């Protein structure tokens, strides 16, 4: 479970969600950039950060609209080819966000949808993460969400550590001769 000081959790809760106000609220005009008075009217639709809408939703002051990352279009994208959906740039905290918002919106399909998405993306991660090259970042990594990236990184670093261990005792050090390239004549005497 994420802790109070977990930075990922904090960033995830900054995510904006659209809410509909059920009650009028005075003195909070700054929440609604379009309002002319200093209050939010009943029925207004406003984007709020998740941490605020969560609390307001518990108090029945607002209701949360299902965010675009769980709408029908996204579901179709995942159905078509889950591994190709770009979560990394669009919804970096897709799974955590889904788990948190799921009890607050009435849409029960989000839970199975999250699981389906993860299960279908897991295979690609499994086949690629242990064999990933040490230096270059493969293209598919950019598509991974933050949670998936942590898994990928764990696999990669354990493999890197193993490879390091395997050669550490061999005493195969690079010869100092190999490091020096012979300088060409032009470098020795630069023409000015």
């Amino acid at each position, binding site marked *: 479970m994420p802790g109070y000081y977990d930075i990922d959790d904090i960033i995830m809760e900054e995510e904006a969600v659209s809410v509909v106000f059920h009650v009028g609220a005075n003195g909070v005009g700054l929440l609604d950039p379009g309002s002319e008075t200093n209050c939010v009217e009943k029925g207004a639709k406003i984007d709020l950060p998740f941490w605020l809408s969560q609390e307001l939703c518990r108090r029945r002051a607002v*209701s949360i609209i299902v965010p675009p990352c769980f709408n029908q279009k996204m579901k179709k994208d995942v159905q078509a080819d889950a591994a190709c959906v770009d979560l990394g740039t669009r919804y970096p905290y897709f799974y955590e966000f889904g788990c948190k918002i799921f009890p607050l919106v009435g849409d029960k399909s989000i*839970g*199975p949808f999250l*699981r389906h998405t993860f299960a279908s993306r*897991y295979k690609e991660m499994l086949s690629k993460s242990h064999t990933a090259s040490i230096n270059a970042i493969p293209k598919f990594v950019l598509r991974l969400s933050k949670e998936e990236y942590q898994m990928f990184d764990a696999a990669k670093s*354990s493999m890197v550590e193993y490879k390091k261990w395997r050669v550490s005792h061999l005493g195969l050090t690079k010869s100092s001769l190999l490091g020096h390239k012979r300088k060409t004549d032009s470098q020795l005497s630069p023409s000015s």
Partner: protein
Amino acid sequence: MAGQSDPSLSIFSAPEVEFLAEDEMIEIVPNIRMDALNLLCGDFGPFLPQIACKVPLWLAVALKKRGKCSIRTPDWMSVEKLTQVLEAERESPREFQPLPFHYVEISRLLLDHAHDDIPEVYMVRSLIEDIRNVRFHKVESGLETISGRTHAVKLKNLSAMEVNIVRPFMVRVLQAFYKHDSPEMVQQVDTSANKRPQVVDRGPRPAFGKIWYIATAHRTP
């Protein structure tokens, strides 16, 4: 364990696994005369020239480094045995061949420190490398079958180092599957919840009744 480098996910680093492997017993042939060693982990010796005796791997390596003994290669590290194992590994796509639990670490320690005691050392080295690659590929294809209903994976005859490599990834994956498969997350999709409230029947379905009430409370404050 006190020696774990990352206690939060219970991960051993590769040198830590090697440390554990050094307690395995191995046969050496000393070329010195020395009294028995009475250590906390047991009594070893006495050491007489050309008389084989069993010692832990760490002691064997320490003696070997000083040129006081030669190490007898274990049976499983012979070229014939390893060739058999490699063939069997390639033939059975699901099963792992029984090898010592620490075969990766032991073979590396012996190949590094006692390569002059191993017959056909290059062959042995490449065979072990091949076996490890074949087995690791098998591990990966075995783990592909994991889905939401998996809570544990049984991998018979897997060795310490192989487990250690996949552990960080697998622990996280299983945690994620467990989270997404928990009963709160996967309630049966209640189609009526998506329709208008008045269409919902209020029949005897206590399991959904409570949830439904919360859902409607938002709509009609």
